[in-house]
């Protein structure tokens, strides 16, 4: 087996890779509620965490799990929950609380088909817009994705790093295919993994303001129990953390919740590209569908069709600049996804309608085979 | 009588923070010695010398507005 990077080679499911990534990132608290196809994340962590002195708890429902990880995060722990479609819906309100109170935590959604109970054991990508807009109220959102067990491992670590750096909940969206496919994962040496920890207060408790308005827009929340006594609330609050009715303070807070993600977009967004330089047909694909797209682009090239792939690893904030750059080069964009065009809509917006955007949506619980995408590209050509 | 007691037992000092008092009248209604009165919608200490320091007005004041020393 040839490795392009140093580390220990192991075979594992995407869901197990997620658990391994969480541990590597320093996660020592998991709360969840069983749901297919995410349960292996909980099962693995229920074994791993107590061995490391970490805490695992199976809560009574998804809202409880989301609340518990926020509570744990406020004591300074890196905390995680994992779920799937219906559970993700149930977590929305509490996820919005984490955005409002600026509590770092990670939520993994192993996407299955919906709406409602839908297809518990089959893949879909139907929650990508819910990840952005599912909770009520304006706020910036970070959502990552992964197309393999290897990427799930790496993106889980990155999710924790982004959560800690920007003091926000971070969502990792994988799908049933990625979660349940067993494949090679290279686990790097711990010393080769970048780990981010949240800011610590640089002032004594007397002069400490948890939500102090700073140039970096990121608050400093001291862990409970360390002598900094402050208030955390989901109500609109001012720098002190106490509720406010002052219109200026409210405007500042809500704008900051969006701006604190926007101003770091260039640091957060990462894309992979395949043969995009001279492409005439651009493909925009993410998650497990990106693997289909890689194969399809190669087949097209063999056939003489100049196809190229833009593959975002971060769905939110949306990679608007990269999509616009692609739109200015290609004649058309094809967006294959396991939904009826949720991201195709974003691609159209980002490309400013400069090129036709073609949807290829599959919602029957089957993955999109490369041949289906190749046919779509041929049709577009 | 009061003078004689004062050596061992100081008379009560009841303080009402009228900024915090919301005028619920609970302190007035349940004072066993009828020391308190309502005035202008707030509690007023009318007869402090009668106070036996049972503390019930302080304990039952929802507004953190009464202290008894």
């Amino acid at each position, binding site marked *: 087996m040839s490795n392009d990077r140093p580390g220990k080679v192991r075979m594992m499911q995407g869901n197990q890779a997620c658990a391994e990534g969480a541990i590597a990132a320093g996660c020592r608290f998991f709360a969840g509620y069983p749901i297919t196809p995410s349960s292996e994340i909980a099962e693995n962590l229920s074994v791993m965490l107590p061995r490391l002195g970490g805490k695992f708890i199976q809560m009574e429902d998804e809202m409880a799990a989301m*609340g518990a990880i926020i*509570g744990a995060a406020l004591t300074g722990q890196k905390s995680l929950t994992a779920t799937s479609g219906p559970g993700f819906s149930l977590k929305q309100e509490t996820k919005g609380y984490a955005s409002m109170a600026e509590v770092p935590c990670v939520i993994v959604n192993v996407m299955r088909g919906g709406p409602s109970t839908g297809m518990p054991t089959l893949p879909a990508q139907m929650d990508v817009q819910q990840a952005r807009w599912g909770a009520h109220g304006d706020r910036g959102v970070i959502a990552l994705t992964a197309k393999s067990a290897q990427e799930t491992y790496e993106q889980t670590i990155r999710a924790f790093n982004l959560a800690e750096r920007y003091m926000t909940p971070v969502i990792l969206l994988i799908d049933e295919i990625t979660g349940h496919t067993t494949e090679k994962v290279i686990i790097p040496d711990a010393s080769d993994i970048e780990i981010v920890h949240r800011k610590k207060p640089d002032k004594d408790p007397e002069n400490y303001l948890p939500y102090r308005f700073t140039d970096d827009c990121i608050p400093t929340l001291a862990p409970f129990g360390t002598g900094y006594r402050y208030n955390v*609330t*989901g109500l609109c609050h001012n720098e002190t953390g106490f509720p406010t009715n002052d219109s200026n303070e409210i405007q500042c807070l809500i704008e900051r919740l969006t701006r604190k993600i926007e101003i770091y977009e260039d640091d957060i967004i990462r894309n992979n590209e395949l043969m995009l330089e001279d492409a005439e047909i651009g493909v925009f694909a993410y998650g497990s569908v990106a693997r289909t797209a890689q194969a399809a682009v190669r087949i097209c090239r063999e056939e003489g069709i100049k196809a190229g792939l833009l593959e975002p690893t971060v769905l939110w904030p949306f990679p608007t600049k990269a999509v616009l750059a692609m739109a200015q080069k290609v004649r058309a964009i094809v967006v294959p996804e396991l939904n009826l065009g949720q991201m195709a809509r974003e691609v159209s917006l980002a490309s400013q309608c400069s090129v036709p955007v073609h949807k290829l949506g599959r919602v029957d619980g089957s993955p999109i085979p490369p041949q289906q995408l190749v046919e779509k590209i041929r049709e577009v050509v | 009588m009061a003078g004689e007691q004062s050596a061992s037992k100081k008379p009560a000092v009841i303080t009402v923070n009228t900024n915090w008092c919301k005028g619920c009248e609970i302190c007035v209604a349940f004072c066993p010695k009828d020391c308190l009165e309502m005035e202008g919608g707030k509690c007023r200490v009318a007869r402090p010398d009668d106070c036996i320091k049972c503390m019930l007005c302080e304990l039952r004041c*929802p*507004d953190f507005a009464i202290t008894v020393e």
Partner: protein
Amino acid sequence: MFDYLQYVRQENFPHIWCAGCGDGIVLKALIRTMDKLGLSQDETVMVSGIGCSSRTPGYVDINTLHTTHGRAIAFATGVKIANPDLNVIVVTGDGDATAIGGNHFIHAARRNIDLTVLLYNNYIYGMTGGQCSPTTPRGANASTAQHGNLEPAFNISGLAIAAGASFVARGDAYHVKKLETLIGKALQKKGFSLVEVVSPCPTAFGRRNKMASPVKMMEQLRDTVVSVEKWEKMTGEERKGRFRTGILRDIEKPEFTAEYAKLIEKMRPEE
């Protein structure tokens, strides 16, 4: 003289509660008990949900967490498991804990996790304008039960006992010294402990139910509360229209975070 000010966030006073609301009375009992037990303000966390009672944390100078409707116990569970050295107090209400948060309430009791839950039972949703709650008495008036409430009420303490709580007590806002004792025992208990505090809401409940004045509501507590000891000797007829206060359950059983600590110890690789 007891100095409440060292425990409160004076800048947030006067508080938002209506005149004669029991919530301030209960908070003061809690503060005196914390003081008596010497609870460290730095190492105590208060978690609440949504409603009048849930505004309590904003007034107490400790680590405070005001969460979403019904979920206080879930957040508190995360705090306690992540750092079992912290004292975790949940302040909640009848609607918050037994309607929208009912699932968390019973499961925390079943788990017997070391939380102290102060549940202010005022029979109504006060903050949102007097809608009926799971404890609104049958026949009582509420803004969503203007023809009289058709539903029977929850017995909250009974629910906690049935679910497995190790300490359950009921107190009320009139009998403040007794309330202090009950809160003290609950705070000292290693396990899930509930103090259900019957607390008057003159504004949203009283005005709709012929008890418009705070004094009248307190008188009603004075006249209807019976100690558990006395209750045992009363006939069914005598108990009518009254309720008992005191310790309703106090047992020893394994506590979740202690059991978890044992698990970690067992998993520790041998040197």
